[in-house]
């Protein structure tokens, strides 16, 4: 075990995977000379050289398309978006090419690409740079969507993503890069599609991922003071969902709070809630309650930004609501 930040865990995963498989290479804006906008690729240029750590022009559509071509030719690109907000200009490559190529080519071309980078609201980057992209990418068939909440998962999940023969959208979080926890040594891979119980409890299942899990953990501590024993479930992979784990938890607690940083309408939480209603209806003692970003463009003002996003208080309130304790 070693104490490590999510940033360093991702760096280590890249390093280990690139060492293991010479077909893996990293490309993106500022990933090489500048060691990455958020230093996830720190030291990799020195270690692997400019053929495998490639700085690109500011042209997401171009380098995402380049990666699709490279993948078709047998390489395994890791594409870093400086921010997932910028993936919007590369969406045609991601959705129409990367995730449909296997189907369109009649099974000839696998596209083993990882599209990774920070997702969601940074501090005060306002309405155009605070998007949460998970619900958008998980909508389309042909692509996996993952989002880690802790360093151990960040490392194990990125390894799984790089080893996957199909495209993966790998969503990190700027505010979480410094989150430091112990990471087990060795080549540990967290399989795609496998969630994790971050805290075992019996009264309510709080489902959250990425930075929302950090808030959920704080909420669970506060709830414990009120005698409420919350279970924290991190699906880790948002598509496909670990419904087995969710079912196991819901059967135990009978109450669910879904937390996501993205907007309320058509969020990933809406999909999870739907799956719970369809498959676990008889186990529910309360309607599922969702805590999500409100339906407004992200304000620049810090107080309004905070009001727009989920918070520990909102999660606590929702948990009490499903427990009829308000």
């Amino acid at each position, binding site marked *: 075990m070693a104490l490590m930040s999510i940033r360093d865990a991702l760096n280590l995963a890249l390093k280990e995977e690139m060492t293991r498989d010479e077909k893996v290479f990293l490309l993106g804006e500022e990933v090489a000379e500048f060691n990455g906008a958020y230093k996830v690729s720190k030291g990799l240029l020195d270690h692997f050289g400019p053929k495998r750590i490639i700085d690109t022009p500011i042209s997401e559509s171009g380098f995402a398309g380049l990666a699709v071509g490279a993948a078709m030719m047998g390489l395994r690109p890791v594409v870093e978006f400086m921010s997932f907000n910028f993936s919007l200009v590369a969406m045609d490559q991601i959705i129409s090419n990367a995730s449909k190529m296997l189907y369109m080519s009649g099974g000839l071309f696998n596209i083993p690409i990882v599209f990774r980078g920070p997702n969601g609201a940074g501090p005060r980057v306002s309405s155009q740079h605070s998007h949460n992209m998970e619900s958008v990418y998980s909508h389309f068939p042909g692509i996996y969507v993952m989002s880690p909440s802790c360093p151990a998962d960040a490392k194990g999940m990125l390894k799984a993503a790089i080893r996957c023969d199909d495209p993966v959208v790998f969503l990190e979080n700027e505010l979480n890069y410094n989150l430091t926890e112990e990471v087990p040594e060795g080549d540990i891979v967290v399989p795609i599609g496998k969630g994790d119980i971050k805290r075992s409890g019996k009264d309510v299942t709080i489902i959250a991922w990425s930075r929302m899990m950090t808030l959920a953990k704080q909420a669970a501590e506060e709830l414990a003071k009120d005698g409420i024993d919350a279970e924290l479930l991190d699906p880790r992979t948002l598509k496909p969902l670990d419904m087995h784990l969710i079912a196991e938890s819901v059967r135990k607690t*009978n109450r669910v709070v879904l937390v996501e940083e993205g907007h309320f309408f058509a969020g990933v939480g809406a999909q999870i809630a739907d799956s719970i209603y369809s498959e676990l*209806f*008889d*186990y*529910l*003692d*309360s309607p599922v309650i969702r805590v999500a970003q409100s339906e407004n463009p992200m304000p620049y003002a810090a107080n309004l930004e905070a009001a727009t996003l989920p918070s520990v208080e909102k999660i606590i309130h929702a948990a009490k609501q499903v427990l*009829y304790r308000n």
Partner: protein
Amino acid sequence: MPISILMPSLSPTMEEDFIKQGTMLCSVETDKTTVDYESMDEGFLRKIVAAQGTPAKVNQLIAVLADKKDEDISEYLKKALEKSQKLGGAKAVVPTVATTPLPPITSVGATRGSPLQTATPAGNSAPIPRSSDDRRTGDERRSKSSPLARKIAAESGISLEAVQGTGPSGRVVRRDVEGYKPVPASAGDEARPQFGSQLPPAVTQDVPLSMMRKTIARRLLESTQQTPVFSVTMKVETGPLEQMRSQLKRGPGHKISVNDIVIKASAFALRRHADVNASFQGDFIRQFGNVDVGFAVSLAGGLITPIVKSADQKALWTISSEVKALVAKAKIGKLAPEEYQGGTFTVSNLGMYGVDEFTAIVNPPQSAILSIGGIQPEVYLDGGIPKERSIMKITLNADHRVIDGALAAQFLSTLKSALENPVWLLL
């Protein structure tokens, strides 16, 4: 294409009238209530099969609608009538018996038959009429409960109607079902009062009448206003009865209750006093050939009187088993109409609440109802020497139009003898 309208009695308009969807076709009267039957189809009313005021069975053909005024429906009518005759004899679907054990029988004063379900004479295939006096919106009428609460309630045989919901808008949630305590079976549980701050705050509120409450109110008012009733009470020494019960307890199977024995003894006495097992019918008194004994079962917000049919011909054990099954069904609202309608006599037992004696209200068209008080010790004189024994008081409330005082006394006397010599009931 003609359309068959299946269901009970009509009081409609003329044939050839155009019927729109939602038009009130007729009123369907059951023993419990009268409901409007609105048409679910459209067309010209071409044939009224069931005449006004006549009884009709569930699924029986009552009328035929057709698209056109002059469409030939003779062939269709013939087939529909044949089908209706086949179906007409079919019994209403009997719900499955609850297998979960339920709290013991707890009964209160009496009413007629039983108004548990909203009156739908419908079998499983007939359209369900809407009750004319239950026109609140679906949301108001529906009792809310969480899916989990429904599941747990079904598994534990608890009727959700009986459970007070504590969730939003009175939603019944898990804690309500798990914390639900059925009406206590022993006086001891009931008798422990709550004190001071344990009590919920007192509020004035208007509690809407449930269908059951309305029926109870109407029928019992009718009974008290229209029946000249008198009551006769006797003491029954219960030593032998208790001794027999404790002997039976040593045998296999479930316990035989005092109530089971009272039902059996009542049947025994009724068989010997056919003039008590009777009904006032205006121009005549009908004495029933069958002895069908109803017994009052208390439910949340009301009561119901399931019936042990031909109780005079059944062994005590059979009666006891039937009572158990009927109570279980009653508690979850699953009694079939024939299981609570048409009794010839009723027994109501408040003994378990520590009641000495009481007078239940006669349940028309029956002529008598028996009220059972609790077993209690008393001191009596045996040749001038004070001794202790246990007794219970039984009271017969009787319709004087059918039963005179002497007859009531004779009947009670036979009943008393049977209860004091309970081995008779084993023969």
